[in-house]
């Protein structure tokens, strides 16, 4: 019974990790770049969500020092007042707003740090230089967050208290039910976007062969921007759900979940969207099962061990493509 519970917790945890892992994998797909700033976009999105949620529920104590109570009550009352007393609606609205803000941030990061470097440099530098700017962007965002929001740990308002009955599982907290529900819907939606829309086809074409995609008339820079926007908004969804369920917000929070998400993306096969989902779920479940053992303090050690073992057997990850083009 204990194991079943742990697996279920692992699935909710894994679903959240998968949301973040998708951003790594999609950007890698189109740019062949590990976007190290992604974990920081996740962190900033958690702050965006906190600010919006606090304004929407009319309780700005969690964001003191960021938003003054006067500003909140005067300027925003008219705009945000409508949702007071409806915590679920407020949480949903805050999530959507955070996703939009994070998309803008993601696009901004791409424009500032990656786009100017594209197609420049030679040989190994083509890959190395953007990697370095990605790391730089990550440090910059972390410090920016510290400057804007201070290093304090800020808890999310607990708007999702209570439990819901799930057939077959018994009572689970409503925040975890929400994580599961939202993740499943989003992953199905993403699958549809990638498989059915022009944007999805263009994204997959671009990740397979950039020059050929341009010959189809794909505007690469627009598709890249939209990929960043999509990845960042998924990270934002993950961030808000994560904080509603279990975390406080602080400037270095991106590191822990970012590392696990990155491992999930590599484990599943970086560049593969289904792989990122699978990798996330595996990391989540393995992590929870490790907690039941005597090595409970070394979750990441075990997670990395699994990663290494999988990569030794399948160097491209579980679902990564090893196909070379026929000539």
């Amino acid at each position, binding site marked *: 019974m204990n194991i079943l519970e742990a697996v279920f917790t692992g699935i909710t945890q894994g679903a959240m990790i998968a949301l973040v892992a998708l951003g790594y994998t999609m950007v890698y797909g189109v740019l062949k770049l590990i976007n190290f700033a992604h974990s920081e976009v996740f962190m900033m999105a958690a702050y965006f969500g906190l600010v919006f949620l606090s304004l929407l529920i009319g309780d700005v104590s969690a964001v003191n020092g960021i938003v003054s109570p006067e500003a909140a009550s005067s300027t925003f009352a008219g705009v945000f007042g409508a949702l007071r007393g409806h915590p679920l609606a407020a949480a949903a609205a805050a999530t959507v707003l955070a996703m939009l803000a994070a998309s803008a941030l993601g696009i901004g990061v791409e424009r500032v740090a990656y786009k100017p470097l594209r197609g420049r440099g*030679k040989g190994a530098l083509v890959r190395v230089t953007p990697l370095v700017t990605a790391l730089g962007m990550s440090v910059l965002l972390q410090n920016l967050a510290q400057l804007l929001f201070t290093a304090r740990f800020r808890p999310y308002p607990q708007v999702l208290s209570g439990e819901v009955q799930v057939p077959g599982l018994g009572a689970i907290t409503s925040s975890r039910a929400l994580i599961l529900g939202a993740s499943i819907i989003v992953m199905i939606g993403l699958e549809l976007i990638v498989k059915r829309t*022009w944007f999805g*086809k*263009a994204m*997959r*074409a671009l990740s*397979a*062969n950039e*020059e*050929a*995609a*341009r*010959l*189809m*008339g*794909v*505007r690469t820079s627009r598709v890249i921007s939209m990929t960043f926007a999509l990845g960042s908004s998924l990270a934002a969804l993950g961030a808000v759900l994560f904080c509603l369920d279990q975390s406080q917000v602080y400037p270095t929070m991106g590191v822990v979940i970012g590392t696990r998400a990155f491992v999930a993306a590599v484990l599943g096969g970086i560049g593969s969207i289904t792989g990122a989902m699978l990798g996330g779920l595996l990391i989540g479940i393995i992590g929870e099962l490790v907690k039941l053992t005597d090595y409970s303090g070394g979750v990441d050690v075990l997670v990395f061990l699994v990663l290494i073992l999988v990569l030794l057997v399948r160097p491209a990850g579980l679902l990564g*493509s090893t*196909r070379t*083009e*026929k*000539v």
Partner: protein
Amino acid sequence: MRVAHPTRASLALADGAPLLELTDVKVSYGGIKALKGVDLRVFPGEIVAMIGANGAGKTTTLKSIMGLVPLAGGAVKLAGRPLAQDTTEQRVAEGISLAPEGRAIFPNLTVLENLELGAYLHRDAKAMKETLEDVTELFPRLGERMKQEGGTLSGGEQQMLAIGRALMARPRLLLLDEPSLGIAPKLVQQIFRAIAEIARSGVTILLVEQNTRIALSTSQRAYVLRTGEIALEGDAKELASNPEIQAAYLGG
């Protein structure tokens, strides 16, 4: 065959004017001069072949037409209009399509998705449906494999897919880069018959080909490119009987 996109029929072209004109086109790759001043003209309805040895600059010429490499000098004009400011996407929108060297199909997308991407710019449902019918008529093997991933096709089938995909944009000018490369001889015949068929439907074709014999027998006119310069040009049949060409490219 219904190929040229209806909206492009309005593009006016004076009688006897070339559809594509390259004047003194120069391209350098980091100090190495790949094209040293290429002059080339393709008239509406023609099949023009460009032949030459490996590294003569044939692929570079096509890339310069698509805007995939920056020009170091000279000009590319489509229907009399210089293309210097246009991006690759704009050139595709104006009616030039390239089936690139090595096919460059999208291996993890299905055959149908590959073809659909060819219509990415116009997204005209009616035109897509018509062209899809035409392509399957032209290459029945593709029709049988619509749901298969592109990467699972044979080399010849991939070449058909690359040409079909280029046609989906409904181009006025189709650029083909080495369509016979690494393909079984039987399929090569089939592909060149299709090329002739496409030309008959009113699409102008510029064909880059190492297989000089088949290139000269399919085209009306031809250019011979040698180390980045046009060495010879003229009627395809005359070139085929030119002793110099025979010695250098036809193994005879």
